[in-house]
């Protein structure tokens, strides 16, 4: 290239000073395919940002008003597709709260174990994807390997690797398989090994740390006012975990800690997730010890639970009962209820209104990542373009639940 040796008059080579509008997404590799961020740039600094969601809107709430309560389970699977089991359990608990039933203790431990396994998967996906977007592809593959080992357990238990639809109102679809406990016990140490391997790859890497530390900081007060929950909230130092502060299932009986960050930057969010995986493993180990090998999993209530197939095919009472539950749906008492659980991203709430029939009048999901994505604008304003990638990655926006 020739050197630029032209005599320039003042102002002739002035750089453009108008702010530049840039579209990131909706199909940008770092936008997880479902979100669009319109940024106004001055140089590489973001002056203004507008986060636009809705590309994965599937009318979940409208669909729920059209079938029976039980028919919602496949939909909630597809809300947070990184941890479908937590959604299943969350929705089942919500309907059970309205029905006033409590599942047997064996089922509670079973739900906890499956739910925590799903939480581990969720955190693996988030941390792995975030590392991958920063150029560290190997940890992503490692974490996927660990996730796959957990998915093998799910496949054995539920028959499906991703969308299990395994929860039921008043129990689970099947009993635990005989090898369940052994499978989980042998998988967990391997998962922890992989977790440590993956962490060792990135946590001493200058590039990785530079892009996480002190980037995307949010204060505790802001996070609380924005309605953040879950890991993203705890990374700011606010200690709130629904499992600890409003225990459901048998969470009050396990000994576990809630990892809390200090600064609320990307690094804190990453590390909170990593430590939460370890805590989940602790919970699972205790739950495995407490869970009985024998005993019922479903509640003993013919209005809620389908009769065994032998009865359906061999007796008229069984046939009628089966028909009534499948065709008319479970009759949920009229009223309204808000039930919440700790999902992979935070508080997953279901606000439901029933008119007493077998069809819900309104099912409102309160998706945790909807609130966190709303805070993204504040976090990236004033930052640089490359900071969007780790910041967006660390809030773990899941299109399915965020866009309903």
């Amino acid at each position: 290239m020739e050197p630029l040796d032209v005599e320039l008059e003042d102002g002739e080579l002035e750089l453009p000073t108008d702010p530049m509008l840039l579209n990131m997404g909706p199909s940008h590799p770092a936008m997880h395919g479902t979100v669009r961020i319109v940024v106004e740039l001055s140089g590489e600094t973001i002056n203004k940002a507008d986060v636009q969601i809705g590309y994965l809107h599937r009318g979940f709430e409208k669909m729920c008003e059209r079938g029976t309560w039980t028919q919602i389970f496949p939909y909630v699977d597809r809300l947070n597709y990184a941890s479908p089991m937590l959604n299943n359990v969350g929705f089942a608990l919500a309907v059970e709260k309205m029905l006033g039933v409590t599942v047997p203790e064996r089922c509670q431990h079973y739900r906890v174990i499956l739910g925590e396994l799903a939480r581990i998967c969720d955190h693996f996906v988030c941390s792995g994807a975030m590392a991958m977007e920063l150029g560290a592809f190997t940890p992503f593959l490692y974490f996927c390997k660990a996730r796959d080992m957990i998915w093998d357990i799910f496949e054995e238990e539920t028959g499906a690797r991703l969308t299990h639809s395994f929860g039921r109102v008043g129990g689970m679809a099947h009993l635990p398989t005989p090898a369940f406990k052994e499978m989980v016990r042998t998988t967990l140490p391997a998962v922890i090994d992989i977790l440590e391997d993956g962490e060792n790859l990135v946590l001493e890497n200058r590039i990785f740390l530079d892009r996480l530390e002190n980037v995307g900081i949010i204060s505790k007060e802001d996070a609380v006012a924005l309605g953040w929950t879950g890991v993203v909230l705890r990374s700011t130092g606010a200690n709130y975990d629904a499992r600890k502060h409003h225990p459901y299932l048998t969470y009050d009986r396990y000994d576990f800690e809630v990892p809390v960050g200090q600064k609320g930057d990307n690094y804190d969010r990453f590390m909170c997730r990593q430590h939460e995986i370890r805590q989940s493993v602790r919970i699972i180990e205790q739950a495995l010890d407490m869970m009985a090998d024998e005993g019922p999993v479903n509640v003993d209530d013919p209005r809620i639970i389908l009769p065994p197939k032998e009865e359906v095919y061999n007796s008229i009472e069984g046939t009628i009962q089966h028909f009534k539950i499948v065709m008319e749906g479970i009759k949920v008492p009229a009223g309204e209820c808000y039930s919440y659980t700790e999902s992979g991203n935070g508080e997953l709430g279901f606000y439901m209104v029933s008119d007493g029939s077998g069809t819900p009048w309104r099912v409102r999901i309160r998706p945790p990542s909807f609130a966190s994505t709303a805070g993204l604008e504040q976090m990236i304003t004033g930052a640089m373009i490359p900071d969007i990638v780790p910041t967006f990655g660390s809030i773990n926006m899941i299109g399915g639940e965020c866009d309903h």
Partner: protein
Amino acid sequence: MSKVVLKRLEKRFGDALLSTHDQFGDETAVVTPEVWHEVALFLRDDPRCQMDHFIDLTAVDYLGRRTPRFEVVLHARSMQKLHRIRVKSPADIGPNGENPKIDSVVDVWKGANWFERECWDMFGIEFKGHPDLRRLLMYEEFEGHPLRKDYDAHKQQPLVEYREGYEKLAPFGLPEGMPFGRQVHDRWKVAVAGRTTEGETNILGFEED
């Protein structure tokens, strides 16, 4: 959830508090739309309430069941005291079919921003004082508000012009609808503007009657 908060609200707002209940253990207060913003501020700032954690804001359409037709529902929580509350307020369509209106609480909890935008998008409830009330999940050209009960689940929206003028998207075909759900068996004949369905059977193979 907590009874303390309900008592405080009762003491402070008196007649503006329409009713309370604690069905399924969720303490609920129904207030008039006039004090909606004031209640939110009170909940956040009162030392006995300290509802600093915004949880959820949504609406329910009780078409044909109740008047006023809409109910705006807010959930909040306290980080320090660990209690929760649900506050509801009725909102009704205006005499000439105007959208229901209620005060915005974005200045109380900034997290309410997107939740109110979603609520406007889905139910057409206008939040007075909201800084940026645009559609959130739907696109700008979308007509109607999909979660209203009188919005047919089969309804199709007109094809949006490609914003730069030439057609890029394939036109809609026959209504695909959602071939499930037991409430919809009689609704298969969805008229599609500009297309005739005469002599054609729908995708389930039912004869047109």
